[in-house]
Structure formats: structure tokens, C-alpha cells
């Protein structure tokens, strides 16, 4: 069934890593096969932050095949070499887990398509996110486990979206976990609760237009669909509104960019969403208890209606 949560602080930064952890942990009964965070941290905006996966978590419950750590080491060398060949410079690197890299990269080109395609041409390598503010962190387990594994509870930023996943139509692995990066657009991420029934039809059309898919998870389609709309000149909000008719099935999804957060709900209103909105903060989740983890006092919340699209700026 999956749970999604998101929040955006307007006019200030906050400890969004800790806050989102609390929201997603409150939703863990909706699925804890994997949990993912898309955090928009405070940065100086000079360098790109890339979260790169060079292998899968093969722990308990994983549907991935185990690989030797030496394979990850070899992939990391190839990634490093490729970044240099692209004319980019690694300013800072962290290898948080054997299969997970965090790079700060000095790269002067705005178009990330060539960069991404070259890095992902290395077998077994996937860029989870790339942007000046966005960091996508996703792994197997519930929100607290992933937060502790990646030390996310200290991250200061303005907004974040996240996902607690019950795997249904694709594997229990990191590549199928949410959020999905809006490849190749800097700082765009998506989380989704629901099922898309015209996934393959849309995927074929989008692949013919040169768009890339990394998993067979239907939710990835939303990120790719919106990215293609933006590539064609639409604004994010326009793309979201078009998705209400372009995507078939039941869905509630969140999409975030460097300075905005949006939500869309299908015309059947089959998937839940509770929303709190004030001048300083917007918080939303599949259930009110997610919002209560950051706002324990009595608050006014509501369910957005069917076919509703909303976007908030920081």
C-alpha cells in the first residue's frame, strides 16, 4: 500500500532530515520493504551533489543477487575515471556504505544528460540523484533504519519528500525504491502511492523519445513523464496537470524541485492524502499521524479533492 510524506518550510530552514524520518516512521505500517528520502539541503549552490549507487543492498529480504565488495571497488574506480574524463572534478567524496557514494562535484555544464548517460553506461551503476540541493537516499528497511544508516537526522534544509514502500509489482531492492530522480533534470524528485495501469504504453512512447528507465517500478514513470514534459518546455505544474489524464490508474504523488513542492491526486481520489497548510509550513502525508509527528498540537487538516494539483514555493 505504501506511504508518502513531504514537508516544505517557507521563510526558513529546518532539520528536515529528522522531521521526515519521524513522518515516515509513523507510516511504517504501510510498508517497510524500503524507505527513501529526497532531502533539499542548504548548500552554497556552487557544486553538484551526486548520490550514486554502485551495488545493491543484499541483506535480509532483498531480491538482489549478492556481489563481492571488490566488484563495487572496481565500479567506483570506473566512476571516478569517468567523472575526470567528463571534465568534472570531485571536490568531496564519501563512501557511506560499500554500495553507496556521495560526491560533491564541480561541473560547469548545465545539461546533465551527457554526464548521466556516461556514468550510467558503467554496468551496475545508477545515479540516484544529482542537483545543487537535492540528495536522494534510499535503502531497504524502515525510515529509522535508513536514517541511522546514512546519518540523515542532522540534515538542515527547506523541504523534503519521502516514501515508505510495500513492494508489490517490482523487487525489494534499491533501484525500485522511491524517490525517483527526475533524470536528467537537476534537483527534481518524485514519490508515488498507487498503481499505474498504462505503464508499458507510456514507457514505450517515452523510451522512443530517448528517455531512460532504470527499473520496472511503475512509479518511476511519473518522474520520467514529468521530465519529458519539462524537456518539451512545460512548467512543472503544467506537466503535473497533464499527468492527470496522461497517467491511468490510481495515484497520489509528490514532486519536488530546488525551490518548490507539489502534489497531484488522480481523478478517482482512490489514494489517501492529508494536508496541513500554514504561512510557514506545508506538511502532507498518507495519514494524519505522519503530520502529527512534526505538529503534535491540534491542527486543521484536509483531504485534497480528486484531480487536484497544488504547488508551493519555499
Amino acid at each position, binding site marked *: 500500500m505504501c506511504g508518502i510524506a513531504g514537508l516544505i518550510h517557507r521563510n526558513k530552514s529546518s532539520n528536515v532530515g529528522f522531521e521526515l524520518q519521524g513522518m515516515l516512521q509513523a507510516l511504517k505500517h504501510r510498508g517497510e520493504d524500503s524507505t527513501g528520502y529526497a532531502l533539499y539541503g542548504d548548500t552554497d549552490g556552487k557544486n553538484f551533489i551526486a548520490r550514486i549507487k554502485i551495488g545493491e543492498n543484499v541483506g535480509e529480504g532483498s531480491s538482489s543477487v549478492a556481489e563481492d565488495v571488490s566488484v563495487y571497488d572496481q565500479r567506483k574506480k570506473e566512476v571516478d575515471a569517468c567523472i575526470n574524463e567528463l571534465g568534472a572534478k570531485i571536490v568531496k567524496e564519501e563512501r557511506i556504505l560499500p554500495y553507496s557514494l556521495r560526491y560533491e562535484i564541480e561541473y560547469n555544464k548545465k545539461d546533465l544528460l551527457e554526464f548521466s548517460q556516461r556514468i550510467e553506461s558503467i554496468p551496475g551503476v545508477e545515479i540516484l540523484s544529482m542537483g545543487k540541493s537535492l540528495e536522494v537516499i534510499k535503502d531497504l528497511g524502515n525510515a529509522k533504519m535508513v536514517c541511522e544508516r546514512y546519518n540523515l537526522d542532522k540534515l538542515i534544509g527547506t523541504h523534503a519528500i519521502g516514501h515508505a514502500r510495500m513492494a508489490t509489482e517490482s523487487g525489494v531492492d534499491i533501484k525500485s525504491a522511491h524517490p525517483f530522480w527526475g533524470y536528467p533534470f537537476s534537483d527534481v524528485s518524485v514519490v508515488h502511492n498507487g498503481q499505474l495501469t498504462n505503464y508499458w504504453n507510456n514507457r514505450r512512447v517515452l523510451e522512443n523519445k530517448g528517455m531512460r528507465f532504470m527499473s520496472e517500478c511503475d512509479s518511476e514513470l511519473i518522474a520520467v513523464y514529468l521530465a519529458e514534459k519539462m524537456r518539451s518546455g512545460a512548467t512543472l505544474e503544467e506537466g503535473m496537470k497533464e499527468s492527470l489524464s496522461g497517467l491511468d490508474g490510481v495515484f497520489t504523488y509528490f514532486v519536488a524541485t530546488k525551490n518548490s513542492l507539489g502534489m497531484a491526486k488522480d*481523478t*478517482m*481520489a*482512490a489514494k*489517501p492524502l*492529508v494536508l496541513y497548510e500554514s504561512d510557514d509550513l506545508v506538511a502532507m502525508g498518507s*495519514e*494524519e*499521524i505522519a*503530520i*502529527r509527528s512534526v505538529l*503534535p498540537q*491540534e*491542527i*486543521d*487538516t*484536509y*483531504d485534497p*479533492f*480528486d*484531480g487536484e494539483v497544488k504547488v508551493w514555493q519555499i
Partner: protein
Amino acid sequence: MANLKNVTKKTKAQEMGMHSEVLTGRTQQKFFNPDEAENFYYFGTYDVDFNKRTDLDVKDMTAAEANKKIDNLMSEGYGTIVIKNPQGKHSLGVGILNKLNLIFEGSLGYFGIGSCDGPVVRINGRVGWSCAENLMAGKVVIEKNAGSCFGAAIRGGDLICKGSVGARTGIDMKGGTIIIGGDAGAFTGFMMQRGRIIILGDVGINLGDSMYDGTIFIGGKIGSYGSDAVPSDLTKSDQDWLRRKLKVAEIGENFDVSKMTKVVAGKKLWNYDNLEPTEKKGAI
């Protein structure tokens, strides 16, 4: 009444030791006699005193613990219980089968007040999905908004939301009344079979889709009609009933009910067409 039979052969169930008594073929159904009401026992119910009042803080309780505590308080005769700090928890106040004044000082999550029969509940906050599902009797008042599937499959009672509600309000309802002070989402009254829904505000698409019976009154704009939902004439009797209901519900004090749209089932769907002639006569 059938005579007792002299049965010598054991049934398979008796051979297996499942029971030893002789089944006679006499009906096992117990018919309720109003003259014996004082002897009638409704399992899981209590005689409570409305003047006996207490507070219950559920902040650090699970839903199961909170519901068990409410049950214990009713067994001690408390007839008015005020729940503090519900904080959006799911499944609070469920399975109450006797009269009770239950007040929530805050919001509920999903499945609040489910499968109840008799209590009067006031929620000074919001409720999540499927509030008061399967309500048999009683009154539930929500001061703020409500989520989707509000009043799903209720059989009786009054369910009042002073704010707006999500999609599929009154889905599969079989009786009772749902009153909404604000707007309602898509598929309101989806497959409803009996009962009445009153929406003072606007309503979304597919209103009354596939409804079998029942009546829906809309005060605002209608997104679209669902299959077999059709407008009908608003009679004086309807208007009188609406005024009475709104007065009791304490909302829409100056609302002009004469401008409301009445929606009923057109009874043209396949389920009517496929009835045997004798059944069709009954349905229509």
C-alpha cells in the same frame, strides 16, 4: 412448530464429537418479542449513567489500549467520556454498542467510530478515512473536515460533518442520514442502497454512481452525475424534512433548502433489467 423427532442415527458431526444434542429441525432463530425487552441481552453492552463523567488521556496509548479503557469505563457505568489527545490515531471509539456520550478533544485517524450502535459522539477536530463505517444507530458530529469513505455502509443513525469531506461519501450506505456542511468529493453516494445524503456545498464528479436507491440532496454545484443517478422533483415534504434535519444537526441555519437538487436512482441499470418479471415488479 415442528415436533421433536426420535433420531437414533448419529450425524457425522456427532460421530466426530462436535456436539451431543439431537438436532430436531426446529429453527434456531430467536424472534424478538418487544414485551420481553427487559430480558433481551445485547452482548458487549452496558447500562451507563450520562451524569457520570470522566476524562481519558490517550496520548501514550495504542488504539487497542484506548478502546479497552473506554470499554472498562462503560462497564463501570460512565456515560460521558471525554477523550484527550487522540492526535490522529486510527480506530478509536470502535465497537460501542450502547448509548454513550463520547467526546473527542482532537482529531482521529482512519476507521474512527467504526461498527457502533447507539453512542452520541462529538469530535472536536477532523477525521480520516472511513469514519463511522457500518454505523447502526446513534449520532456522530465532526466539527472540522473528514476524509474519504465517510459513512461507508452505514445502516442507520445521523452522521454530520460540519466541514468538507473526501471522495466516496456514503458508499454502499443502507440507511441513516449523512449531512455535510461543506463540499464533497467524487463518487458521493456510490452504490448507495438506502438512506439520505445532504450536501450543502458542491459535490465532485460521478455523483450517485450506480446507486440502487436512496436520496441525495445537493445545495451547490454538481461535478457530474454517475451512472443511473438522475435529478428528481424536490417536494414540499422533502423541504420540510430537510429543514428539520438541518436544525437538529445545527448547521445551515439560514440555508435555502428550496433551491437544493434532489438526486435519486433511475433504476435503469443491468441489475434491474436482469430481474425475473416478479422480482422486477418488487424492485420498481
